């Protein structure tokens, strides 16, 4: 597994374990995230990608393991350290998690109003600027339910970047979107990552887009990280799990062709 040297790491995850009752979700997950990079965690549905991201964000507490952020260990019991992490990190939820009883502008202003002492006028200017950058300025007085799915995604991104975070965690940012919107979301992430210079960790199972948009990709399978490296290294890897994930489209074509020929194809193990 190729990783960056630890001194350059902005986020360094080591041997994170998490279980829910008898169900072991994460069985010693490692991840190295260099400063200013886009790292995408790939994996099949149900492999614990979102749980892993929630462990990073502090929404779920890992059973064991260590998460180092900017060289400091993130202890779940250390409130000051956690608060510092939250100040420098944003989280984009899979379903956007916008507050539905307040307007788009109020949603974007929320993190600044509730966590900083910035004057109200400056907050408003920064929020309008964020909305303008994401082409949402004219929808600022609408409620989230009055916006389309793509607009809600952009609004969630505006809320995530308005605090000028150093790290943004994206949980399945393209879930449920059509291919065109999926491309647009990935383009948006890369564009704003370059513009604002934050470090990004994405969780997705959209392979082609992830390979195009990421500096590094990692593959989570059965509770542990099976691969981490550049997209080129991922494409060249001979690891059976990586190959199975990477070649899933070709495998699908073969399976469909075999089924059309009337042959038996066992796919139950992949579900």
């Amino acid at each position, binding site marked *: 597994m190729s990783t960056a040297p630890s001194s350059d790491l902005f986020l360094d995850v080591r041997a994170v374990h998490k279980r829910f009752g008898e169900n072991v979700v994460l069985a010693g997950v490692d991840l190295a995230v260099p400063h200013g990079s886009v790292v995408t965690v790939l994996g099949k549905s149900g492999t614990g990608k979102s749980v892993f991201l929630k462990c990073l964000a502090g*929404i779920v507490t890992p059973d064991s393991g260590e998460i180092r952020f900017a060289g400091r260990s993130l202890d779940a019991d250390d409130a000051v350290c956690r608060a510092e992490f939250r100040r420098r990190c944003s989280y984009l939820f899979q*379903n956007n998690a916008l507050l539905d009883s307040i307007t788009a502008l109020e949603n974007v202003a929320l993190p600044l109003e*509730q966590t900083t002492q910035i004057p109200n006028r400056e907050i408003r200017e920064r929020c309008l600027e964020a909305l303008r950058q994401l082409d949402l300025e004219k929808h600022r007085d609408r409620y989230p339910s009055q916006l389309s799915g793509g607009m809600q995604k952009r609004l969630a991104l505006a809320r995530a970047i308005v605090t000028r975070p150093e790290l943004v965690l994206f949980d399945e940012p393209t879930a449920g979107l059509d291919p065109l919107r999926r491309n647009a979301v990935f383009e948006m992430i890369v564009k704003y990552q370059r513009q604002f210079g934050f470090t990004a960790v994405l969780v997705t199972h959209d392979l082609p887009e992830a390979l195009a948009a990421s500096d590094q990709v990692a593959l989570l399978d059965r509770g542990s990280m099976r691969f981490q490296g550049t997209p080129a290294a991922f494409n060249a890897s001979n690891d059976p799990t990586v190959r199975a994930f990477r070649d899933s489209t070709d495998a699908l074509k073969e399976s469909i062709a075999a089924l059309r020929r009337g042959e038996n194809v066992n796919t139950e193990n992949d579900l």
Partner: protein
Amino acid sequence: MSIRVLPAPPAWLASASFMLRFLGKHTLATAYELGDFALFTGRSFSAAVGSRKLGRRVVRAVYEQGVRCVPVILIVGLFTGLVLGLQGYYVLNKFGSAGLLGTLVSLTLVRELAPVLAALMIVGQAGSALAAELGIQRNSEQIDALETMGASVHAYLISPRLIAALLVFPIQTAFFTLIGLLGGFLSGSVVLALQPGVYWSAVYRAVQPQDVRECLIKAVVFGLLTVAICAYNGFNAHRRKSSTGARAVSASTTRAVVFSSIIVLAADYAITSLLV
């Protein structure tokens, strides 16, 4: 080597053991929940200190608990007064004491019915809405979003509702009392034969400052308890083991309303015992 099979314990011992385990488990769970509820309420009040735009959120909560509940308070208050006037007149008239109708209606309303019924009406309308709203916010990760951005969830979501309850419940109770007195007057003096002056002078003579004080104390305590219970249940909808998703929200809302209603009656008895 021979294996000695121990005899099965007698049925009464097995039952007693089961009962002890059952009682112990539920006692511990109740103690934990009471402690957690106390911390939740305390944290919600302390988080209000220094919270930005708290006033705006309090105004919104006052609107939800206050303005939107006024119609139901007025309707229930009016009919309560009407029924009290009707029943009271016929009973008192049998003893030749119909002139005491104002005393009966006013003391019944001020001391007991107004704070209790007003609280139950607000729980039914605003408390259930609060529990459901927080449950849905929990389910849709809106509360997680607030936590990840480093905002105080208690200051943002709970504190304004508790502060609003301290203001709204006494005012709603006063509305209930006034409209109830009017209902008693309509029954006794407009529908039946009691002189208006007799009714209102009895009201004026009967109600003492300590009755009003008791009434307001009850309203404040009921408001605090019921809004805290509704908020606690909605906020912790995800913790329910028996149900998930929409069912957890529905179960939490039901639990919030039922518990709040029981607590109102229990607290009413406790406060009356202390103040009488």
